[in-house]
């Protein structure tokens, strides 16, 4: 019988595989426009993406939605974010986001959770890794 446990070091290494996503020129342009960045590199059919665009493919929602971990977006603060790029994402890339829980440090009713999301193409080319540190507070008992 599975007993839900709140997030702990036991969950380090848990991975979440997402469906392949296609990077589109339209989405890159929308993102560049949202940043107010007129750089022509982000426009046209061969657009490359700005460095933080990877966040649109690398959401840590899968981790927050894992019922076993007892996490909640409303109790989570995004502390910091990093990206490492082998090359920019570009229009036409089909990437498979894989999220993994890298670290869990718990203290009292709070957890510091590190989630790393790799973005490799369906052909196995590594493009980028996005790593987030999340500060989570547990639900207070009634």
């Amino acid at each position, binding site marked *: 019988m599975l007993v839900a446990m709140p997030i702990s070091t036991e969950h380090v290494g848990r991975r979440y595989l997402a469906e392949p996503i296609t990077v589109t020129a339209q989405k890159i342009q929308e993102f560049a426009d949202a940043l107010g960045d007129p750089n022509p590199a982000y426009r046209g059919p061969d657009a490359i993406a700005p460095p933080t665009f990877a966040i649109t493919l690398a959401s840590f929602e899968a981790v927050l939605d894992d019922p076993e971990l007892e996490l909640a*977006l409303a109790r989570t603060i995004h502390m910091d974010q990093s990206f*490492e790029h082998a090359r920019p994402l570009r229009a036409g890339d089909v990437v498979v986001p894989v999220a993994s829980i890298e670290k869990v440090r718990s203290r009292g009713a709070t957890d510091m959770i590190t989630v790393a999301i790799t973005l490799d193409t369906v052909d196995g080319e590594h493009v980028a890794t996005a790593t987030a540190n999340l500060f989570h507070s547990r639900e207070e008992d009634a």
Partner: protein
Amino acid sequence: MTTLTIPLTREKLVRYAGASGDFNPIHYSDHFARKLGQESVIGHGMLTMGLAMRLVTDFAAPEKVRSCRFRFKRPVPVPDDAEGAALHLELEASDPDDMGVITCSLTARVGDDVVGSGKAEVVA
């Protein structure tokens, strides 16, 4: 040092939410933001980072960015008016190291408060 000042308005938050897929209500609902202890809607930390990275990709082309990181130090309340929050962004670039890598130090301020800081590594 290069700088950029962006009026962070509610409209920009709306556009960024749609573009990034981050629909956390704390970024569009004053009611929800206040329930979570904020004075009002706050901006996405990732929006501040994306705006700061504009300085980097203007300094060195986007494809030269090998890595970047940003810490979200303080929430950025965004008033519901025409001016929004005046987000002041700064970049300081190091000399290239032995591998030809330049480190860009980034700071984001609203008034006297540092709301975020980070670094980006670009190849020369």
